[in-house]
């Protein structure tokens, strides 16, 4: 009996272990095509990829690969970095553009240079020609996607009912903007009979106030130029001082939400819906319709108004900064057939691949109308995991592009024209960069010097330090804590680009 019990337990444990390990094994698809693995964070809000996805099958037919996607959960860049560091190399990996990890992969020889394959990669070659700065010693190690490089969705946004209530038009200059903010605070725009409003709220940290510095002549999104034409940090440009004095005066008059540093996106938007602030700095584009309908749920007569950044005394203006961050998709040395992997990636970035992932297969997922429009066949699209209402396939976004970069909105998107218009207005105020990329020293010291900037910016804004005193301290500490090293890299990069 004792032996039987003992044998039973041992057998049970053994069987459990065998079953567990057996279940753990990944079955290899025996299609005869090249099994290609792609590790990426991808479109984290997308639906799960299905087993019998016709879009995926079409891509595999065209490219001759058996695609095995490894899509990591939202924000899971650590997972990607750990996989590469531990030698778990996929054929294709998508990392963060301008990150220490991605640069390390290049230095360590983990990524395969694409130069030899470029003649067979027309779409990648075209992009690399535009982004020639991504080459390291003449070698292109991957396909760069820069988020918000040529378009942006950030613009100053207010509400039409408040403008009407205080008798003001949409402001165009800094002084008109100040006047509107004053009226929003002093003239009871929400008709509550109490002084319970702010002029503007935003979402900390501080970039949302850059419009003040650009209005006073700070020239570029990343750096400024001094009178001799040498790169300097924003805060050493005279326009920064003037912008800071302007912002300080807004703060002293109580026009800026005193708790803006505590806001996340939700809280900022709620303050605006609830009539606690007249202005905010949201992401527009496909959110125009959502923001306006939420606003009208509380104030049915209100409308969303976005407009250009206020113009300074000498005619300068600007709001959103041109992006430098994004994604970097590359072939690793773990790929048994780098050329095949590169050709697959080229199809992925091609217009044909893009149409397949956004529209689907013609006749199955959509039909073209006589006037050039698109009819989505939703019941078929659902079968292949397309998102509802004309939105895209799980593989469409997050790997080599985002919707904003393509100006992509389905035909069924509510307020589609306004959404596109909001991008045009915002993009007109987008400020270019002096250097198109993030230097190595910025990657290394950027976090420290940004904290110093934020600390001193706040102290100057709320009056704990005088503007001149604050700028002097900011400049000294910023340069001592890595800023000088950053500026060496920036000046060198600027000279090379010239």
């Amino acid at each position, binding site marked *: 009996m004792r032996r039987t019990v003992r044998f039973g337990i041992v057998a049970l444990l053994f069987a459990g272990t065998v079953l567990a390990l057996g279940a753990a094994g990944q079955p290899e698809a025996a299609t005869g095509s090249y099994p290609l693995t792609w590790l990426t964070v991808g479109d984290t809000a997308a639906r799960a990829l299905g087993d019998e996805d016709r879009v995926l099958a079409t891509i595999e037919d065209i490219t001759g690969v058996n695609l095995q996607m490894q899509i990591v959960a*939202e924000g899971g860049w650590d997972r990607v970095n750990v996989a590469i560091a531990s030698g778990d190399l996929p054929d294709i990996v998508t990392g963060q553009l301008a990150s220490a990890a991605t640069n390390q992969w290049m230095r360590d020889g983990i990524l395969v240079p694409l130069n030899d394959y470029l003649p067979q990669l027309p779409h990648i070659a075209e992009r690399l020609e535009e982004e020639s700065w991504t080459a390291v010693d003449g070698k292109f190690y991957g396909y760069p996607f820069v988020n918000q490089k040529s378009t942006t969705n950030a613009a100053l946004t207010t509400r039409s009912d408040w403008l009407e209530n205080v008798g003001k038009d949409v402001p165009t200059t800094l002084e008109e903007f100040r006047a509107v903010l004053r009226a929003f605070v002093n003239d009871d725009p929400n008709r509550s009979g109490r002084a319970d409003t702010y002029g503007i709220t935003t979402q900390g940290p501080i970039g949302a106030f850059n419009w003040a510095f650009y209005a006073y002549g700070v020239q570029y999104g990343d750096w400024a130029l001094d009178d001799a034409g040498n790169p300097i940090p924003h805060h050493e440009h005279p326009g920064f001082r003037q912008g800071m004095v302007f912002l300080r005066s807004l703060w002293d008059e109580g026009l800026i939400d005193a708790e803006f540093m505590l806001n996340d996106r939700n809280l900022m938007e709620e303050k605006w819906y609830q009539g606690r602030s007249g202005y905010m700095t949201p992401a527009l584009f496909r959110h125009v319709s959502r923001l306006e309908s939420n606003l009208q749920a509380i104030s049915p007569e209100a409308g969303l108004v976005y407009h250009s950044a206020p113009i300074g005394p000498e005619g300068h203006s600007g709001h959103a900064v041109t992006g430098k961050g994004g994604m970097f998709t590359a072939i690793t040395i773990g790929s048994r057939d780098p050329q095949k992997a590169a050709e697959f990636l080229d199809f992925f970035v091609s217009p044909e691949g893009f149409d397949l992932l956004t529209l689907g297969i013609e006749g199955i997922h959509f039909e073209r109308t006589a006037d050039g429009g698109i009819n989505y066949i939703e019941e078929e699209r659902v079968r292949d995991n397309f998102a509802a209402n004309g939105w895209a396939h799980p593989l469409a976004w997050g790997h080599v592009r985002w919707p904003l970069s393509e100006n992509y909105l389905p035909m069924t998107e509510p307020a589609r024209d306004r959404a596109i218009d909001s991008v045009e207005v915002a993009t007109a105020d987008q400020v270019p960069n002096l250097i198109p990329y993030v230097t190595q020293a910025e990657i290394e010291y950027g976090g420290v010097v940004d904290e110093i900037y934020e600390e001193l910016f706040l102290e100057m804004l709320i009056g704990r330090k005088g503007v001149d005193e604050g700028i002097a301290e900011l400049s000294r500490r910023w340069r001592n804590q890595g800023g000088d090293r950053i500026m060496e890299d920036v000046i060198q990069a600027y000279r090379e680009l010239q």
Partner: protein
Amino acid sequence: MADRNELSAVPTFRQSRLSRSRSDSIFDVVNYAFLTVIGLVTLYPFWEVLIISLSPYDLYLARTFHLITERVDLSSYRFIMGMPGLWSSYRVTLFVTALGTALSVSLTTLTGYVLSKDYIRGRRVIMFLIVFTMLFSGGLIPLYIVVRQTGLMNTVWALMVPQAILTFNLIIMRNFFFSIPDSLEESARMDGAGDVTVLVRIVLPLSMPVISTIALFYAVQLWNDFFNAVMYISDRRKWPLQLFLRAMLFDSEASLQSGSDDPSLLGQPIKMATVMAAMIPIMLVYPFFQRYFVRGIMIGAVKG
């Protein structure tokens, strides 16, 4: 002399009793008030999550504080019930929690029992090596390599097997086994019991308090774990509940631009309903096992 002592003792006793009583009362009032405030501060976030999840969207948008809702609206719950991702992640979490707890408790019990026996040679060395891993971890990359090499990647087993035995729990379990008198085991052996019979018939029935405690430790940890899923699971259909919840609440550039079931487009009541869905099961279980927490740890600690 005795009388005088008695006489003098009475008023002293009365004064002392009166003054202690008053100060006790004051202390009690202050104590209760303080603890009530602490309790309310702790409870408020849960309460707000519940109220927001039950609020219609227009009422939610109109309010800053959410102490009560004028209209109860279950549409957020109806919405999340229709999300296929919720149910699949629920299934994964229930599976991982149930099987993982059973696996962990079994392995911890067996290991703890063996290491509590004096006659096992080298048990101190083995215990030292185990405790060493608690103090000096190998780090993420070696663990990732082990999971990959054992073929556990992208399987739910990766959420259970690599951390099946937590050293802290093993120490508690082992210390508890020390408290069981050797004479019980010896008498069982004299009656002809073998190792397995002693463990199953004698030791385990006496160890139910510590097993319950350890089981709850493991269950709560497995229920709440999302990091292992981020590291080892890339198939969305195998996401556990906490990873699904994280994706719902995570607000990033990606979610602001995404073209799919964008979390940023979902209202806060829907997000809070998902939080409730993730919290309710473990909150329902917790009160029934809570008393074992303190008792189990104390048993292990005192006898250690």
